[in-house]
């Protein structure tokens, strides 16, 4: 579809007419409002997921200890003011479930995907605005169902976010009845919402790019969201299927995963990780895209190896389908299969390394501006390097035999998912806040938040590698039950204290967002002197995004410090000086 058709469709919206409060803020079909809605809900969910983490660390520092302030929590999270084996299992299960499905995915895909795709490719809205609205509200319903499970008899799901069958398939094994059912139902509903979103993103990116916005002129964050949407479209139905089978086992008397009836427990793991590994990349690819925008913009340099960056993400997407077995090396799966999965897993490290080297290349001979957004972007690279390198240990099957199911894995996943994805989220929020809300975020507060988070994050998660090397299993509520773990107790205490600082520091981000929303400096159209299309729209953009015609794209997204321009940036929408050189 050409951009003129898009103008024709949306032209009517361009004329300013007032929508009711409900249509503007609640049941909005505007991609920008839906993006903001995803952001607000995800930040709320982050506080719940964070609370779960704080409870876990409280318990690991002082197991089986009563704290009177815990009595304000629902019965499912504390037992007589103490965290016990049952409630601890519920806490880490809900921590991971909430952080993965209701925080990282909604922010990266729901918020940034919605807000950025039309603005950065030069479209007035998504291809299917009503479907977009439905996607948000279906996801919100999934969140309500998940939250409800805190108050049902038996408490919320407690079988881990991986919910391995047969433990998750029989209520007797965990003592959790409706909590686990609601967990399945919530994620099935969420999957429907995500599918609607991903179909929308794919259609919009393929059909609604502005004139001159060729695929290889798209910003890398759009590439990353495009690839992520395709992964979501193909991976989520697998999870939905697995969850439906699990629910049948629980409620319908089937035996898909129950060996007593001829079922196969490993089937669950194959289905779950066939979804689960692409899922891992769903959560990191948009972070890579955001980091690329931040690093190019604030180094005032073209991204090093733009095409290599895009191809690396495409190869990660392909390889992500054939590495799932590395989660199952010790599961009883044929060990010969393990060897094959080890090889593919080692190979998927290559595109990740390519990306890292290209980010370094972008910094080389740059003109680096240390804004709060850039600090978070650089931190993404540094932490992703640690998370990526620690993955090599578990890719090697014999080494994995020792560190599997220990804190080494916990350290690895948090370096990728917090050190990677969440630092990209912090950077992305700071960078696009002016476009989202029309005001700049406070730089000083942003930097204070960054430094405390950076230090506390490393103090929290780096020592977990050492715990893992000491053989410390994950998912145990009281390490003091084991003699061989007693020498590691001071490390657990140190981690817990660091985690409390890390948790508390996030209030600075929240305070900065709220303060800046009301009192921040008013943002100009292009406060960072960036090149991509969203910065040609007003801050914040109105309905239809551009008051006049949709801009035409003349060049790639990273023409910083180009010899063709006296400035150190050359926006995609700026016509060339010699009109004959204009893109066709």
């Amino acid at each position, binding site marked *: 579809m050409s951009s003129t058709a898009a103008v024709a469709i949306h032209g009517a919206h361009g004329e300013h007419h007032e929508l009711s409060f409900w249509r503007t803020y609640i049941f909005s079909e505007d991609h920008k409002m839906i993006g903001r809605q995803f952001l607000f809900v995800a930040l709320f969910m982050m506080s719940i997921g964070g609370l779960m983490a704080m409870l876990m660390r409280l318990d690991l520092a002082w197991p089986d200890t009563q704290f009177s302030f815990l009595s304000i929590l629902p019965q499912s999270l504390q037992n007589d003011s103490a965290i016990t084996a049952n409630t601890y299992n519920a806490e880490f299960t809900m921590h991971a479930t909430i952080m993965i499905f209701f925080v990282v995915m909604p922010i990266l895909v729901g918020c940034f995907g919605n807000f950025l795709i039309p603005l950065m490719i030069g479209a007035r809205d998504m291809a299917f605005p009503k479907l977009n609205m439905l996607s948000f509200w279906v996801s919100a319903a999934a969140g309500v169902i998940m939250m409800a499970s805190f108050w049902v008899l038996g408490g919320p799901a407690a079988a881990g976010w991986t919910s391995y069958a047969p433990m998750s398939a029989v209520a007797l094994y965990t003592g959790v009845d409706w909590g686990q059912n609601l967990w399945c139902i919530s994620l099935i509903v969420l999957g429907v919402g995500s599918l609607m979103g991903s179909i929308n993103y794919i259609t919009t990116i393929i059909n609604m790019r502005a004139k001159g916005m060729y695929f290889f002129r798209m910003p890398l964050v759009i590439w990353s969201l495009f690839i992520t949407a395709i992964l979501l479209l193909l991976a989520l139905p697998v999870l939905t299927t697995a969850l439906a089978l699990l629910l049948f086992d629980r409620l319908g008397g089937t035996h898909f995963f129950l060996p007593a009836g001829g079922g196969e427990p490993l089937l669950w793991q194959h289905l779950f990780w066939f979804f689960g590994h692409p899922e891992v990349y769903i959560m990191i690819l948009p972070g890579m895209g955001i980091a690329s925008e931040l690093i190019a913009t604030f180094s005032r340099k073209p991204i090093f190896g733009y095409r290599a960056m895009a191809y690396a993400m495409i190869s990660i997407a392909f390889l992500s389908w054939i590495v799932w077995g590395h989660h199952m090396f010790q599961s009883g799966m044929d060990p010969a299969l393990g060897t094959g999965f080890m090889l593919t897993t080692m190979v998927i490290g290559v595109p990740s390394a390519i990306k890292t080297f290209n980010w370094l290349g972008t910094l080389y001979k740059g003109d680096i501006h240390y804004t709060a957004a850039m600090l978070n972007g*650089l931190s993404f690279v540094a932490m992703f390097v640690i998370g990526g390198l620690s993955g090599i240990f578990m890719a090697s099957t014999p080494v994995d035999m020792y560190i599997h199911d220990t804190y080494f894995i916990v350290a690895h996943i948090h370096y990728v998912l917090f050190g990677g994805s969440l630092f990209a989220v912090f950077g992305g929020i700071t960078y696009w806040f002016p476009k989202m809300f029309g005001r700049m975020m406070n730089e000083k507060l942003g930097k204070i938040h960054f430094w405390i988070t950076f230090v506390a994050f490393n103090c929290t998660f780096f020592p977990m590698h050492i715990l893992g090397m000491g053989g410390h299993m994950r998912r145990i509520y009281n390490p003091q039950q084991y003699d061989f773990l007693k020498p590691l107790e001071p490390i657990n205490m140190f981690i817990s204290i660091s985690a409390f600082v890390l948790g508390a520091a996030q209030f600075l981000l929240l305070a900065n967002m709220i303060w800046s929303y009301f009192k921040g400096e008013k943002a100009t159209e292009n406060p960072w002197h960036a090149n991509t299309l969203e910065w040609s729209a007003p801050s914040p953009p109105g309905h239809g995004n551009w008051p006049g015609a949709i801009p035409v794209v003349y060049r790639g997204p990273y023409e910083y410090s180009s010899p063709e321009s006296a400035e150190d940036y050359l926006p995609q929408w700026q016509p060339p000086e010699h009109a004959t050189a204009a893109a066709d």
Partner: protein
Amino acid sequence: MLEHMYFPHDISTFGPQVDWLFLLIFWIVVITWAAVMIAMVVFMFKYRHRPGRKAEYIEGNTRLEIVWTTVTAVIMIALAFMSRSTWAEIKEHGPPGQVFYKVAAKQFNWEITYPGPNGKFDSKALTVENEMHVPVNQVVRIDLTSKDVIHSFFVPNMRLKQDAVPGRTIHVWFEAKEPGQYAIPCAELCGFGHSGMQGTLTVESEADFQKWLKDQYANQ
């Protein structure tokens, strides 16, 4: 070999190979990390913004892309091949067994079955909870299964881990080199009693082992 790095003391025959691979990857990782961080910090300092300076317009370098792609790929694939033989020895074949047990995991104990005095798993076989006694320097072979949910048989001192799956029997082997008492925690979340689920592995001389076994048969 790795005890100065918090690793539990290794007592298995294949442990040194696992530790060697860990150490190999450790040094590759540390050197790569240091190189990347030094480059990053140097660039961050050297190319920080100063008024009047413009960044250099560099779009990329195909030769560099080819070099770092090839080098990374070679290292990664080499690591996979170096890990392969150790893995095959531990999980695929291994030496013929000298002592045979059956272990069934259940919420929240290890049920260890020793063959009867005639060496057969018949009605005289002996089942003990959580106490595994093995003779030193002998190859122990275990048929591992589970009676309810998935558990994981983990002996940190031997670097050994294997999930126990209901409906399946998985063969595990090890050879302990040093007498002593070691923990067998469950490493896979198995329910509300997961934390604290552990057995004890007692490695002792052949004579002590036979004596213990005899006492157990007598008490049965």
